[in-house]
C-alpha cells in the first residue's frame, strides 16, 4: 500500500478553509498582516494540510472513511497557497487487518508535516 497525493491549494483556499472551519486568524487570510508579523505571506492552516494526509490515507485504503482509525501529525514548516503539496507515505507495520502508515507532507522542499502516522483498518 502506497500513499501519494498531490494538491495545489489556490490563492483563496485559506479563506474558504477559514469559512468552513471558523479559524479566521489573520496570518492565514491577510497577506499584509502576515508580512507585518514576519511571514513571507499568508500561510495555510495546519489542519488543512493534515486533512490532505487524512485524505491520502483514506484513498490508499480504498476510499472508505471508516478505514482511518487514527492519525497523528507534527506540524513543522509553514505551508503556503499556490504551491503544490505532496503527501507521501509507506507501510511501517502490518498486523491483524490493520496497517500503520508513516507519512509526511512536503511543499517546495520543506516538510510541512513530519512524522505522521496513520492507522488504517484494511479488513473486517
Amino acid at each position: 500500500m502506497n500513499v501519494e497525493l498531490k494538491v495545489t491549494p489556490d490563492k483563496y483556499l485559506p479563506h474558504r478553509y477559514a469559512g468552513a472551519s471558523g479559524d479566521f486568524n489573520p496570518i492565514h487570510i491577510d497577506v499584509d498582516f502576515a508580512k507585518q508579523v514576519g511571514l513571507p505571506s499568508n500561510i495555510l492552516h495546519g489542519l488543512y494540510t493534515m486533512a490532505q494526509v487524512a485524505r491520502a490515507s483514506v484513498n490508499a485504503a480504498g476510499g472508505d472513511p471508516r478505514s482511518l482509525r487514527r492519525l497523528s501529525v507534527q506540524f513543522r514548516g509553514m505551508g503556503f497557497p499556490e504551491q503544490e503539496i505532496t503527501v507521501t507515505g509507506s507501510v511501517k507495520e502490518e498486523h491483524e487487518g490493520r496497517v500503520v502508515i508513516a507519512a509526511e507532507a512536503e511543499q517546495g522542499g520543506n516538510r510541512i508535516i513530519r512524522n505522521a502516522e496513520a492507522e488504517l483498518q484494511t479488513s473486517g
Partner: protein
Amino acid sequence: MPVKTQAIGKSYPPFEYEVGKEKIAEYARVVGEESPVYFDRGAATEAGFRDVVAPPMFAVIYSWGAVAHPALDPEVDLNFAMLVHGGQEFAWAEPVCSGDLITTVASVKDITEKGGMGFYVFETVSTNQDGQEVVRGTWTNIVRGVS
C-alpha cells in the same frame, strides 16, 4: 516566565455541535474530498451510513468549540503571541453523520517545559447522541520562550 501547571487534569463544560448536511459538504469541498458519501444521502446510505457522513478530519469542526475552553483559561495562561500548533492526533470510533448531536469535553492532559518551550497538551473526547464515542483528539500547543 515558567509554565503554570496547576490546570493539569482540569476538565471543562461540554460543547455541543449539531452536524448538518450542507456543513459537511462545505468542509468536504474545501479540503478536496470527492467521494459521494460526503455529499449524497443515497450514496451514503448505500455505503452503510445512517446519513451523509463527515470526512474524518471534520472532527476539528465539532470539537474546536471545546478546545477553546482550556485555550482561553487564565489558569492555563497560553501566550498566544508565541503559540504554534505543534501536533495533532485523532483516534476515530463511530462515524459522524448529518443529524448527529456531538458533545465534546476538553481537558488539560499535560503542561510541561523543555528547552525554553512550553508544551500544552489538551485532550477532547467527543460522543454522539447515543453516548457512543466518535473521536478522541490530542492537541499539542507549543509556546516559545517560556523561561
